[in-house]
Every structure is written in C-alpha cells, then in structure tokens.
C-alpha cells in the first residue's frame, strides 16, 4: 500500500470518528433522537472500501457503517442531513432512522433495519453483474449477530452455488446489542461458517486497515475472476453502546472496554503512520482542522436545512 493511500485511509477514519462524535453531541442536545455509531469499526470499514472500486462496485451496508459510506463518497453534509432527518437527506429524505444508508448514484444500496436481508440483495446484484457482465463486485456488510438469521445462510449458499461476484464482509464486534458471541454461536470464528458453503472464510484483524484492505482486495479480485464469493471476518470492537438508546454497562465490564481501547484503530494507525514517517505533525494538524471545519459546516448546514413537508407523506409508495 502506498503512503498516499495510507494517509487517505487515515483521513477517512478520522473524519468518521469526528462525525460520529458530533452525532452523539447532537443526540445529547436532543437534536438527534437516535444515533448508531461506527466508533471502533473504522479500520474495517475504510480499509475495505479502498480495496474496491468506490462508486462503481456496490456496497450493501448496515447501520454500523458510517465510516464506510464516508469513505465511499458520501459527504459529511449528506450524512448530517440524514442524521437530522432533513428533507434533503439523500439517503431517505428524512424517512429512515439515522444510519440507514442508501444512494443509488454512489451504488450504496438502501438498507432497512431488518438484519441480514442485505446479504441476499448483494447476491442478487452480483447475479445481475454476472449476467450483464458489468464487472462489478457487490459487498454486503453485517454484524456477527445477524449471521444467526436464516437469510444469511440462504444468501451465502445461493451465491456459492452460482459463484457470484460478491463478498460477505462481517464486522465482528463480539456483541449483538447485549448478547455476547458465545450465546450467539458455538464457534469462535464467524469465518468457520464458510466451510458449509464451500467458499473461503478469511479472518482478519479488523483494527488494522492495511490488512483489511489486503484481504478485501484479494476477495474482490477472486470475485471478479468469476471464482465466487468470500466470507471475510474482521474482528473488531464497538467502543460505545449499541445505539443512543442502549446502556452497555449492563452487559460488559469497563475493564473489557478499556482493554480493547488500547487497540483503538484510529489511535494505533495514527501512531503507525507517525512512526513510519508517513504522517507529519503538520499534515496531521492540517487534516484535523479540515475535518473540524467539515464537521462544523455539515452540522450547520443540516441544522438550517428544511424538514420534510408533511404533505409528502404519501408520496413514492409506487412509481409516480
């Protein structure tokens, strides 16, 4: 990976964290009733995004994927319009809860809240790509809890039989809201599930964006060569509660959280770039300022933007 690319990845990780932090502030201010965070997952998301053809390949994200969609090309303004449910929100016009991404132009598939359904959608996108020979790869993102859903299984099986150009990217943070992985499955690695579908299952340190980039690139290339899907398991952690409605002290110790925080992907990657002389102090400061300005601008912009007109409530149920 080139130093430039490493810096770009770092930039998006830092941008995402900053947007994320701002969302929580807006939540506490009563301006954003619900917040879902990617805090802790940035390396997995941004590393994988840069391994793909951003805007041309398809991603099917879930609510945890703020850093992913930022890296994919959604602007902080667009994110904030969504978080504050403004009419101009390009994801849903303020109709969906925050973190329900979707922009056709960028090839970000619109997602609902029902977990695991996007695996089948990505599989279908890939089926179309294969038939239409458009060269695209589709990547579905999902939590480890959602792998218990039957639809996860059905999608992987279908994709494997037809050797479709799709990648199943698991962000394993060890919890599904309060339920720890050991109550969710009797295996240590989500990647072990690949064996039942006859596809490769790859485990990667989800806190290392470079490693994530590598395995995702390999999986995407494999898909593009017509060799079928890959299941990637990126092991990571979420540093904050499941959502702003959650209180994670009920189900995990502060010691556990602190232990993982030592491996905060943003901090460790920053240290690495500094240690390797890739990121200078000036560059870092400039980036920080740029990000601060962007986040402030996005917040102001979205706060001033109009709310949806109630008269639009019944629009777009069907083609008009």
């Amino acid at each position, binding site marked *: 990976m080139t130093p430039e690319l490493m810096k770009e990845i770092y930039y998006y990780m830092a941008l995402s964290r900053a947007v994320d932090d701002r969302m929580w502030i807006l939540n506490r201010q009563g301006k954003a009733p619900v917040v879902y965070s990617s805090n802790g997952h940035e390396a997995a998301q941004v590393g994988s995004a840069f391994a793909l053809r951003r805007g041309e390949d*398809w991603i*099917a994200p879930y609510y945890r994927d703020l850093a992913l969609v930022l890296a994919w090309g959604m602007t902080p303004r667009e994110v904030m319009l969504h978080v504050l449910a403004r009419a101009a*929100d*390009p*994801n*849903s*016009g*303020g*109709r*969906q809860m925050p973190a*329900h991404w*979707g*922009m*056709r132009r960028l090839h970000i*598939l*619109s997602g*609902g809240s*029902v977990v695991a*359904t996007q*695996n*089948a*959608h*990505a*599989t*279908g*996108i*890939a*089926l*179309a*790509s294969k*038939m*239409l020979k*458009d060269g*695209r790869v*589709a990547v579905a993102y999902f939590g480890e809890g959602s792998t218990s859903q*039957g*639809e996860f299984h*059905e*999608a992987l*099986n*279908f994709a494997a*039989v*037809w050797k479709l150009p799709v990648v199943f990217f698991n962000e394993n943070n060890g919890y599904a809201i309060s339920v720890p992985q050991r109550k969710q499955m009797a295996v240590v690695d989500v990647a072990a599930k690949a064996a039942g579908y006859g596809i490769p299952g790859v485990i990667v340190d989800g806190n290392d964006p470079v490693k994530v980039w590598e395995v995702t690139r390999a999986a995407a290339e494999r898909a593009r060569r017509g060799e079928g899907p890959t299941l990637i398991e990126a092991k990571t952690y979420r540093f904050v509660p499941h959502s702003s409605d959650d209180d994670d002290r009920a189900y995990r110790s502060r010691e556990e959280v602190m232990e993982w925080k030592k491996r905060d992907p943003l901090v460790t990657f920053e240290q690495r770039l500094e240690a390797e002389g890739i990121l200078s102090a000036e560059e870092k400061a400039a980036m920080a300022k740029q990000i601060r300005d962007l986040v402030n601008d996005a917040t102001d912009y979205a706060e001033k933007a109009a709310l949806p007109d109630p008269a639009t409530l019944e*629009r*777009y*149920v*069907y*083609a*008009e």
Partner: protein
Amino acid sequence: MAVMTYLEAIRAGLRQEMQRDPRIVIWGEDVGVRGGVFRVTEGLQQEFGEDRVIDSPLAEGAIVGVAIGAAINGLRPIPEIQFGDFIFPAMNQIVEEAARMRYRSNNDFHVPLVIRAPIGGGIHGALYHSQSVEAFFAHVPGLKVVVPGTPYDAKGLLAAAIADEDPVLFFEHKAAYRSLRGEVPEERYLIPIGKADVKREGQDLSIITYSLMVSYALRAAEALAQEGISVEVLDLRTVRPLDRQAILETAKKTGKVLIVHEDNKTGGIGAEVSAILAEEVLFYLDAPIRRLCGPDVPAMPYSPPLEHAFMITPEKIAQAARELARF
C-alpha cells in the same frame, strides 16, 4: 385467435416477454430442467438458456431477496414460488424489503419484480398445497397483487406486471391451470393493473370476485338467468390496488352485493371490499352485503369429503345469490 388453457396463456406470456426483453430472468425451484412442477415454464430453459431460467436452491427467502438485488442492478426478475403455501419464508423480503424500497429511499431505488405463485385448491392439495395467500399481501402498501381469472386476463396482466416498475405478486389459480380455456391473442397486450372488469352485466345483484371464482360465478349467473335473476359479475382482477370506482358502480347499479372468494372469510379481500361499500355507498344498498368465502379453517383438508365441504362451488354461489336476490 388461438384457444389456450390458463397455463398455456401464462407460458406464452412469459415466452413473449422473454423474447422481447433480454433482462428478464426466471428462477425458482424446479423451473428449469423440469419446467416447473406444474410445467408452466416448460421449454423456456431450452429456448433461453440456463442463464435465464435458473434452478435455484430450495430457499424462498433467497429466491425473493436475490431478485430484489438483481432488479436493482438491472435485471427484470420473475422468481417463482413453487406453491403459494411456501411463500412465508420469503415474507420478510417481500413485506419489509421489496414493498418499501421505493418509499424508504424517497424514490431513489425501486424494485421491478414479478413474483409468480400458484394459489388455491380443489386438486387434492391438502393443507399445504391449497392456500389462498393474497390477503396477506393486499394489506401491504408498496405491493400490487394480481389474481387473473381467465386465460386472456392472465396473459395481459402478466405483461402489465412485468412492465410495472414496482413489485407485483402474480397469483395463478392452480385449479384453473388446465380447467380454464379461452381465446388468447398471439400479439402482446397489456391489461392495466388496478382495473376491474365486468365479466357479465346484470341488474338484480352484483357478484364481486376474482381468480378461479370468476368462472364459478359466471356459471352461477348463467344458472340464475334461467330462473329470471339477472346477475352482474365483477372480476376484480387485482386485489391491490382495488378498483374502487368499479366496485362502487356495480353496487350502486344493482343495490345488492355478494362477495365471493375461496380464501378464509375473516380478514379476506371481501372485508375490504365490503368496508369500501359501507363507507361510500351505504344508502344505495337494498340488502346486507353478503360474503361467501372459505370457512375459517387453515386451508382445505385432503380427504375428498372435507375438501369438498371447504370448496366454494357454482352451486353454493348460485344459492347465496338466489337468497340475496330474494331479500
């Protein structure tokens, strides 16, 4: 014009559409090599290849979920659910995903998709090969639900469903497949979704119905004509959206309404039709709105006496209509 069965009309429609539009792809259980368990897709894999007529794994959730993704990335999928009874594993994808993709994305995405499935009974199908499942979907904003009652309608509505930019459930009555015959044009024609059709004009009372029951109602009307009772038969053709205007008009015209469907009575399509009437034309009615429907048991049992007791017949319709006419 060629005379075809209901099944042949659907097959001809699929073939014609696939010839016209290379983006159309069919998949489902046994639809390829075997041509479907009812043979609706027979010959299509030979004609269009294994890429366009796909034998899928046995997983209705994926069959529909994959179709949603494929539709979004440029195909026009027509997945088949082998029996309406087995559509429930796909319920989540249909109701929570396909139906609301357009709404939730504020018109950024949409899902042009036709899900075909056979419904209904009377063919020794028992509890799990006889169900009428249309009412579940007719309740869902974002879906369209088509229930043809003649070969002609089946082909024309299928073409319209495929042309539609939103998800359509296309429910074929399996007892109609080989029992109904009629004239069907060779050339392509579209019957608009959401328009009911007066299949027979009459003065004394209206039967409002759909799917297989249309032909049964027509037989009943024929029999009653001999007795001097003039029956109008309105074929809904699609149960979402309902053709409110046609429903109100026939009720205003005759003043007496008998709603007939094979599906269980409680919460069936008849309830909504009746509620529309009670809301809009109550004072035009000369008699209570009657519903003749399947009894409230979980589909029809296998043993012939029980199946027969469940099924609605032309005789039962005639009897109900006779009583209503005399009201």
